[in-house]
């Protein structure tokens, strides 16, 4: 365990140092993560005003609270490994990772966390600015805000493990971008990024809850905004735990099968 902690410490130093070199592109991606929710927020506010001030119980102020929280949750939970795996496999950088006596997922985890630490201060500033501009109505409940912390961390874990596993499709197909597109479109609707899930047709809400999507973004947002009863909150945490366990199992299985394919075909 101490060995792994030391690897993480060193990996943090390395990744942090090299990300600082890419400040500009990291901030451009960050702008994307700020603009997305702002656009949805503006659109929904307009819709809400034109339909008498509220859509499905969401006033413009509520929408503002929803999308600002969503922005911050997305900031904590996003990953980009799905865009990188094909490159790693085709260009052989995975080979170096396989020669090391450590699972390559550790590097990705540290990379992910480092990039977030770098952009966090600006993200908080952005949130503050949006709060001033859009005047969100928060109705926070202390116990829910407390539970939000583990829910947020679990959401990140589930999303990271799910996307890392999906990224491994690159071992079998060269059409990774199609897999990615399919996944991201589904995530856009089903994780609550584009609209609160309660505004979606019932079948989609069911799909979002049965798949990991709701638990990766929408659930912590709903919890933070005080929209869940204690029982619903506990069910959510249990669903996250279940997806995490299942995800880890799938990751292990798919990874082993993938490496076998890789080592049969070569790079």
């Amino acid at each position: 365990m101490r060995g792994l902690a030391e690897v993480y410490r060193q990996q943090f130093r390395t990744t942090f140092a090299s990300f600082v070199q890419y400040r500009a592109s990291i901030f451009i991606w960050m702008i994307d993560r700020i603009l997305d929710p702002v656009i949805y927020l503006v659109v929904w506010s307009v819709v809400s005003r034109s339909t008498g001030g509220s859509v499905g119980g969401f006033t413009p102020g509520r929408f503002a609270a929803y999308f600002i929280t969503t922005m911050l949750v997305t900031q904590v939970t996003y990953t980009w490994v799905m865009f990188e795996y094909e490159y790693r496999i085709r260009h052989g950088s995975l080979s170096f990772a396989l020669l090391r006596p450590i699972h390559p997922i550790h590097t990705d985890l540290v990379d992910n966390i480092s990039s977030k630490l770098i952009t966090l201060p600006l993200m908080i500033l952005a949130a503050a600015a949006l709060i001033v501009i859009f005047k969100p109505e928060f109705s926070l409940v202390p116990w829910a805000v407390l539970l939000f912390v583990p829910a947020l961390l679990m959401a990140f874990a589930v999303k990271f493990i799910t996307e890392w596993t999906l990224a491994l499709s690159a071992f079998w197909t060269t059409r990774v971008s199609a897999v990615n597109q399919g996944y991201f479109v589904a995530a856009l609707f089903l994780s609550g990024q584009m609209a609160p899930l309660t505004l979606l047709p019932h079948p989609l809400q069911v799909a979002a809850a049965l798949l990991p999507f709701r638990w990766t973004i929408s659930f912590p947002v709903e919890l933070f905004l005080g929209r869940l009863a204690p029982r619903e909150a506990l069910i959510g945490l249990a669903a996250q735990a279940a997806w995490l366990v299942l995800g880890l199992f799938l990751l292990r299985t798919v990874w082993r099968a993938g490496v076998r394919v890789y080592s049969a075909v070569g790079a």
Partner: protein
Amino acid sequence: MPPDPAIRLRELSKTFTATERESGMGAALASLVHRRRQEVVAVDGISFDLAPGEIVGFLGPNGAGKTTTLKMLSGLLHASGGELSVLGHVPWKREKAFLRKITLVMGQRNQLVWDIPAADSFELNRAIYRIPAADFRATVSELTDLLDLGPILRKPVRTLSLGERMKCEVAAALLHRPQVVFLDEPTIGLDVTMQRRIRAFIAEYNQRSGATVLLTSHYMADVEALCRRVIVIHHGRLLFDGELAALVGKFTAHKTIVVKLDEGADAAAGAGLAAYGEVVSEEDGAVTLRVPRAETARVTGRILADLPVVDLTVEDPPIEEVIERVFAGEKP
């Protein structure tokens, strides 16, 4: 009794399945429905042993199966058949204990983090390979001396020249003091001075650490400087396994002399070169002669004495040519 071999291959083979199709639209559409698969045998039943501490050149033309073999030896590829053991491990199980004892350096690829100084990548390797701090310091300082790394360790890797980067790559790959070192074209693209430097270092490392080294290179000079024994493969098959001296003596019974005469020299002088050896080619005023190995010094002396020479070089035939002859079974 001799010690157990560090590396042992028995009838090792690797077959890839490749899809193929003709060029053109029609063939492209047909391939959507039916893909023609073809088995490509990259390595075809090769066997050899390497004793601990041995340094062996692994030669063959492009596509001979060298890299595929190295990838099987380092655990990146599953063999399709045969047996393989490296330090008692089956490489493709990729056990941590195995990975901590080996290294693979690929001259055309790099593992160092591009944007930070190599020293920081070294620290990361220290943690990953769990190298005790004292050993790490000793190794880094030894490698710094041997490779003259001093100032370049502190510069971001992307600002280094190819040669400097290669030195750092080699050092990074050896920090954990691997007992088995696989080198795939470690000097490719480097200038002669840097090639010599890397070569001298590999020899020194082998001496000091007693590591077993298997090296592929297209540069005959690398092989000559480092390896007493060479293994030659072609089309995935073993063609030669023995002393380098025997290979070179047996298959390069000739040397080539390239002569450039003064432009003022008359045509007769040029034509007269045929008297000194077999004229292989004549290009831009440079004549390439093939002469028996043993005669080289005498013939060179005569040419220099007799003709208005501007430039003269004596070369071994390229390694590809030597291997080609081994393959063709040409007699000296």
